[in-house]
């Protein structure tokens, strides 16, 4: 996951720069203490300390789910959970990154499934090993009601599971805490896919647009643009017709309507 170099006196390059006058606090990474600026996120603090994230870091915006962290504060038994790119360091944090958890992930062809929960049950029978301990929900850095959607799936309610799990970012902390060895986040993803494919009403205008695209309605335009020089392409872009700002809805139409 990462490698260490000696802690630099001054942060340089892509590392966080210690603001003037900022105080530092001790944190523990794999049991070893590092002094880091108190304003940093866990991820930046670890980089400040000399670790380099080759994997286990993605969007750095709290949405990709690559940097789940388990931490505990000195003097307390309680475990806390967060995303390294979002959680700000606190003094005497003991940190462990869980970039990957070896949870079961079933393979399936969504086109061969149905809107019934039976197929989800068959792919993930371990679902029925849930004991409702709720450790999954407590571990979720996105405040998803994990026990709620697992219960919904046991009850065959795919829509409820899809909606309850909508904020899941697939970090896997739920699975890491599960005594039933259930890969909650993978099951939830399947539930959302089944919901979208078989249960949610399909958008008719989207369907007709896809048909048009597949029938080649836009091929000529694309071909024309692919053949342009860079300068012509830029000019075409700059000169393109735009809807004026703050225009009354429905009151504006472009001159060129051949693709509408």
């Amino acid at each position: 996951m990462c490698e260490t170099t000696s802690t630099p006196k001054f942060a340089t390059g892509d590392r966080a720069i210690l603001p003037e006058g900022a105080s530092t606090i001790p944190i523990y990474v794999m049991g070893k203490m590092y002094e880091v600026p108190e304003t940093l996120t866990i991820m930046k603090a670890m980089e400040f300390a000399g670790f380099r994230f080759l994997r286990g870091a993605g969007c750095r915006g709290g949405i990709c789910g690559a940097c789940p962290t388990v931490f505990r504060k000195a003097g307390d038994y309680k475990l806390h959970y967060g995303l390294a790119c979002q959680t700000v360091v606190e003094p005497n944090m003991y940190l462990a990154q869980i970039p990957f958890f070896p949870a079961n992930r079933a393979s399936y062809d969504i086109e061969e499934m149905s809107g019934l929960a039976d197929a989800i049950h068959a792919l993930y029978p371990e679902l029925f090993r849930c004991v409702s301990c709720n450790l999954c929900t407590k571990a979720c850095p996105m405040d998803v009601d994990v026990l709620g959607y697992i219960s919904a799936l046991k009850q065959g309610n795919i829509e409820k599971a899809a909606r309850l799990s909508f904020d899941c970012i697939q970090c896997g902390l739920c699975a890491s805490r599960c005594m039933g060895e259930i890969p909650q986040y993978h099951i939830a993803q399947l539930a959302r896919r089944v919901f979208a494919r078989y249960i949610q009403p399909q958008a008719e205008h989207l369907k007709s647009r896809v048909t048009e695209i597949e029938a080649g309605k836009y091929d000529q335009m694309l071909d024309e643009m692919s053949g342009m020089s860079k300068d012509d392409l830029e000019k075409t872009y700059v000169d393109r017709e735009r809807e004026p700002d703050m225009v009354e809805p429905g009151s504006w139409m472009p001159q060129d309507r051949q693709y509408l």
Partner: protein
Amino acid sequence: MTLRINDRTLSRESIKNLNELSGENVKLCMQCATCTGMCPMAAEMDYSPRKVMHMAQFGLQSKLEEINTYWKCASCHACTVKCPRGIDIAKVMEALRQQTLRTNTNYIEPSEMSAETIAELPQIALVAGFRKMTS
């Protein structure tokens, strides 16, 4: 059934453990076999519930580990209700299952069950079966 009882087969510790885990006292059993008579699954068991109680009384731990009786038990409590010595035999069977399950060993493997079977079974069958037979 011949029980081989000697220093090597008998484990006093296992009697104590089983009693602790089940909350029952297997030594109260007087071998009347009412449990076997009541048991709906006896035909599928290699040793009847009475014989298992006998093994348990003598702490024949390694013998107990290789038999299927408690894996065939359906926890129906017919034995418990009728036991003249007031032993909750269903609890003894559960304790025997738990001794194996607590070593991260499954008796049935959910991932080896066919998709058709799982899709057909009612949820309570899966929940109950996995609780009783997976680690």
